[in-house]
C-alpha cells in the first residue's frame, strides 16, 4: 500500500497533472480578478488550499478545485519523492538536481513569505516625524491608558482577534472588551437616511449617528472602513457600549478605577525603535508633461537607542534597508506635500534570488549538455543531413 502510494506520489504523471492544474488555476484566477479584485482573488485562488464555490465566500461553501497551496504542496512532495526514487549521482544529473532544488527553494520561500512577511505603509507630510507604520487593510482597536503624564499604555486588539474571540481580556487591561456588533465595511452618517439604522450606544459619541453595513470592497485602491459597537465590561458592571469606527477619529474616552482610557479604531500600527522625519519630497516630471520621472523623499533617520541620526534619500528603485525593514517610495499625496513609503518586512527575501541562480544554472547545464554533443555530431557528419541519427532520447 505504502509502496503504491509512493509510486504515485513520485510519478512524472503526477507532475504533469499538477503543472496542468496549476496552469488552469493561474488562468482562472487571473480572470476572476476582474470581478473579485486582485486582493480577494489572490486569497481565494492562490493563498488557499481549495477553491470554493461560490467565489465570493458565501454559502454553500463547496470545494471545486485545488488551490495554490495544495498544488504547491503536492508538487513539493512529488519533487522530493521523485528524487528519492530516481536519485542517481552523475554529471548529467547535476542539471536536473540544481533545477529541482531551485524550484523547491522557490516554493518553500514563497510559502514562508506568505506567512512571515508583513507590509505596511508609512505616510508622512513634509515636516512630519513618525516612528510607526500602518497596515494597509488591517484595523485594530486601540485601548489606551492615558492616565500617566509621560506615556500611554496601549493595548492594541486587531479586529480579527476582536471578532474571533468576542470577548477580549488581557492581563494588562482591568476590564474586558466585548464585541457586540462589527461591520467589516460600513458607512456612517449624521442624518437618518434610507438603509441606515440608528447607532444604539449608551456612551461615547455614537449616539446621534446612523450606520449601516457595506459589502467588502474589491477595487485595488479602496479600503474597507469598519465600524463596531463594543462594550467595556468590568467586574463591577458594564461601563457602557461605544461606537468605534474607522471614520471616527476622535477617541472615545472612559474612566475606570481612577484611570482614564481612550478607545479608537485605527489602522494596525507597527511601532519601530527609530523614527523617520520627512524633510523634502520631490515629484519630478518630464518637461512639459505630467508623466512622472521620479519621486524622491529625503528623510532623516533617527535612532535614539544607538544615537544614529542621518539623512537618507529614498526614491524609485532605491529603497532604504534598515533593521530588517525595507522602505520603498510607494506613493504621495496629491498636493505633493506628503510621501507614502511602503514598509516591508520579509525575512525570506533571499530565496527567490538563490532559486533563480540555481534554476538558471541547472537549466543552462541541462540545455548545454544536450546541445553541445548534438552540435558536435552534426559538425562531424558533413552535409549528410539525411542520415537518421540515433539520439538518446531522455
Amino acid at each position, binding site marked *: 500500500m505504502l509502496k503504491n502510494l509512493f509510486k504515485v506520489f513520485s510519478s512524472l504523471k503526477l507532475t504533469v497533472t499538477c*503543472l496542468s492544474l496549476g496552469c488552469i488555476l493561474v488562468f482562472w484566477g487571473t480572470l476572476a480578478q476582474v470581478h473579485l479584485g486582485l486582493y480577494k482573488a489572490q486569497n481565494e485562488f492562490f493563498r488557499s488550499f481549495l477553491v470554493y464555490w461560490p467565489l465570493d465566500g458565501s454559502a454553500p461553501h463547496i470545494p471545486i478545485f485545488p488551490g495554490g497551496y495544495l498544488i504547491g504542496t503536492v508538487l513539493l512532495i512529488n519533487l522530493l519523492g521523485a528524487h528519492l526514487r530516481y536519485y542517481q549521482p552523475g554529471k548529467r544529473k547535476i542539471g536536473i538536481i540544481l533545477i529541482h532544488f531551485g524550484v523547491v527553494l522557490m516554493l518553500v520561500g514563497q510559502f514562508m513569505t506568505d506567512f512571515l512577511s508583513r507590509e505596511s505603509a508609512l505616510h508622512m507630510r513634509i515636516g512630519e516625524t513618525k516612528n510607526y507604520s500602518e497596515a494597509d487593510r488591517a484595523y485594530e482597536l486601540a485601548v489606551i491608558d492615558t492616565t500617566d503624564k509621560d506615556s500611554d499604555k496601549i493595548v492594541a486588539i486587531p479586529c480579527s482577534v476582536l471578532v474571533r474571540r468576542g470577548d477580549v481580556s488581557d492581563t494588562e487591561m482591568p476590564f474586558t472588551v466585548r464585541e457586540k456588533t462589527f461591520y467589516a465595511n460600513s458607512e456612517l452618517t449624521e442624518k437618518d437616511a434610507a438603509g441606515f439604522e440608528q447607532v444604539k450606544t449608551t456612551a461615547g459619541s455614537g449616539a446621534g449617528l446612523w450606520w449601516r453595513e457595506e459589502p467588502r470592497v474589491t477595487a485595488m485602491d479602496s479600503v474597507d472602513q469598519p465600524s463596531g459597537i463594543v462594550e467595556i465590561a468590568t467586574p463591577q458592571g458594564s461601563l457602557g457600549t461605544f461606537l468605534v469606527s474607522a471614520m471616527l477619529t476622535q477617541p472615545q474616552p472612559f474612566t475606570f478605577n481612577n484611570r482614564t482610557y481612550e478607545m479608537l479604531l485605527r489602522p494596525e500600527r507597527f511601532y519601530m525603535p527609530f523614527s523617520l522625519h520627512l524633510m523634502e519630497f520631490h515629484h519630478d516630471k518630464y518637461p512639459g*508633461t505630467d508623466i512622472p520621472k521620479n*519621486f524622491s523623499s529625503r528623510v532623516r533617520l533617527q535612532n535614539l537607542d544607538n544615537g544614529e541620526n542621518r539623512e537618507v534619500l529614498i526614491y524609485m528603485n532605491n529603497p532604504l534597508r534598515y533593521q530588517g525593514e525595507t522602505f520603498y517610495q510607494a506613493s504621495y499625496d496629491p498636493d505633493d506635500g506628503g510621501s507614502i513609503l511602503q514598509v516591508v518586512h520579509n525575512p525570506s527575501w533571499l530565496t527567490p534570488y538563490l532559486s533563480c541562480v540555481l534554476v538558471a544554472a541547472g537549466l543552462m547545464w541541462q540545455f548545454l549538455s544536450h546541445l553541445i554533443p548534438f552540435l558536435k555530431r552534426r559538425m562531424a557528419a558533413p552535409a549528410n543531413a539525411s542520415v537518421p541519427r540515433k539520439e538518446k532520447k531522455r
Partner: protein
Amino acid sequence: MKKWIPLILVAAMAGWVLSSLYQPPETGFQTREFGKLPVLMDGRFQPFDSVARNSLLQIRTKQTVPLDNGQMLTATEWLLEVLMKPEQADDRKVFRIDNGEVLALLKLPESQKYYSFNQLKPQADELEKQADRIEGIDDAKRTVFETQLMKLFSEMNLYQRLEISLKPPGTDDFAAELDAYQKSIAPGVAAVSARDAGKKFDQDAFNNLIGFMGNYETVARFALPAVIPPSDPGAPRNDWQNIGTNLMATAHTGEISPPAQAYATMVTGYRSGSPADFNHAVSDYHLWLADRFAPQVNKASREFFFNNFQPFYKALVIYVLALLLALFSWFNLSDWLRRSAFYLVGLAWVIHTFGLIFRMYLEGRPPVTNLYSSAIFIGWGAVILGMVLENIYRDGIGCVVAAFAGFVTQIIAHNLAMTGDTMEMMRAVLDTNFWLATHVVVVTLGYASTFVAGLLAIIYILRGVFTTTLTPETAKSLARMVYGIVCFATLFSFVGTVLGGIWADQSWGRFWGWDPKENGALLIVLWNATILHARWGGLVRERGLMNLAIIGNIVTSWSWFGVNMLGIGLHSYGFTDAAFKWLMFFVGSQLALIVLGLLPVKMWKSFSPAPKS
C-alpha cells in the same frame, strides 16, 4: 548560374534599400528641412517630422494624405498646413471614422472612410455633449460606440491644438503682426503701469497690448509642442516654451526672440506662397539653433533620418519575399531557392537589427520599452532562432519560421504604432535601464522562443496533413527542433519571470503579486515545463508534442496581449476592440490547427498508405 541567384537577389534588395536613402532635392517649399527642426513634445525632443507622422498616424492611421488630384501629402506637408494654413487643412480628409453609429451622430455619409474637419465641425456641440457624458463612464464599461466617439473626440482635440501651436487663430501675416506687437509693447506696458497706479493712461495703447496678449494667452494654453528654446544661455537646456508663452513673456523683455521671429517669417512665407522666404527662414533658423543647441538639432536630424528610412517596413518587404522563396523550396527542393531565402532573411535581419539599434540610440534605452518595441524585438529574436535552426538542419524550415515570424511581428508592431509616439518617456518606476535590459529582454526572448516552437509545430501539422513532404526524417528533425526550442524557452521564460519578480522586490518589496501580467508569464513557464515533463514521462510522442507546442502559442498570446485587455492590475493598457477580435481570431486558428493535429494518422497525407520511400 543558379548558385549566383541568391547573391544577385540579395544585392538587388540591398540596392533597393539603399536607393531610398537618396532623396531628390525639393523644389518649392523645403518641407523636409522644416521637418528636421527640433521641438520638445511629450517630454522628449523630436523633429517636426515625428510630430507630423505620429499625429497623422493617430488621426488617419496612415502617414500620408492623398489629395484629389492624385498627389500625396507627406506627413510634414500636412502638418505645415495644419500649423500655418488651418483653413486649408480643415478641408483635408484626414479623420478616419469606421463606426456607423458615430457617423450617424455626425450626420455624415457612410460611403467614405475619411472625413475632413469641416465635415465634423457642424456637429461639434453634439460631439462635446456626448463626450461629456461618456467621460464619466469607466473605460471598461464603455460600449464600442462610446469608445470610438471618445477616440474621435481626442483626435479632434489633438488636431485643434496643433492648429493653434504656431500661429494665433485669425492671423495672416504673422511676421508683420509681430512687428506691430513689438512696437506696442513699450507704450502698452506704460499704460498698464499707469492704470495700476491709478493714474491716467493711454486707453488705445492698453487695448492694443491686451489684444495681442489675449491672443497669445490662448496659444500658450493650448499649443502642443514647445518650439522656442530658452534664450538665456544659463537656463537649463530643457526649458523650452511654446510660442504663446514665449510671446507673452516678450512683454517683459521687450524683444521678440529670434526663434519666434523665425517661425513668424515661416508662417508669413508659407501663407503668402513665397517659398524663398519660407526656405530662408528655415535654414537661417536651423543654423542659429545648431550653434546653440547642437545636441537637440543632431538628435532631431537623426530621428528624421530614421523616420524616412523606415527600416522596419523595408525589412518586412524582404521577409515576405524570403517567405515565398522558402515555401517554394519545400516543394521544389532546389537548394538555390532555399539559399536565396536564407540570405534574404539574413539581409532583412540586418536591416531589422539596424532599426532596433537605432531606436535604442534615439531613446537611450534598452530595446524593449513598450508594446510596440516588444513586437519588434520578439520578431528579431524569432528570426535569429529560425536562422540558427536553418543553419543546422538546412531544410528550409528555419527559413520559413524566421521569415514568417519577422513579417507577422512587423505587422503587429505597425498596428501598435497607431496610438501615437512609440518612443514615449518611461514612467518613474520603469526608468531603470538595468532592469529594462535584463528582465524585459529575457522575458521577451522567452515569448519569442515559445512562438518559434509553436510555429515549428504548425509547420509539422500543415505539411503532414496537407502535403506529402513530411518525411520521417523531416518529422524527426522538427520534433528535435521543437524540443530544443522548448528547452530554450523554458530557460528564458523562467529566468525572465524571476528577474521580473526580483525587480519588483527591489522596487516595492514584493517579489510576486499575482498581477495578471505576472500570471501570464508564469503560465508560459508552467506550460513549457508541462511540455517537457509530458515528453519525458512518455505521455506524448511526436504529434502530441506538436499539439502541446501550439497550445504554447495560445498561452503566449494571452500573456502578451490578453492580460492587457482585462483592464485591471498593473500592466493594463486598456481594451482595444480590434485587438481583441484579432486575438480571438488567432486563438481560434490555433485551436483549428490542434484539431487538425488530432486527426487520425491515416488521414494525414504524409502518413497515409503507399509511403514514399
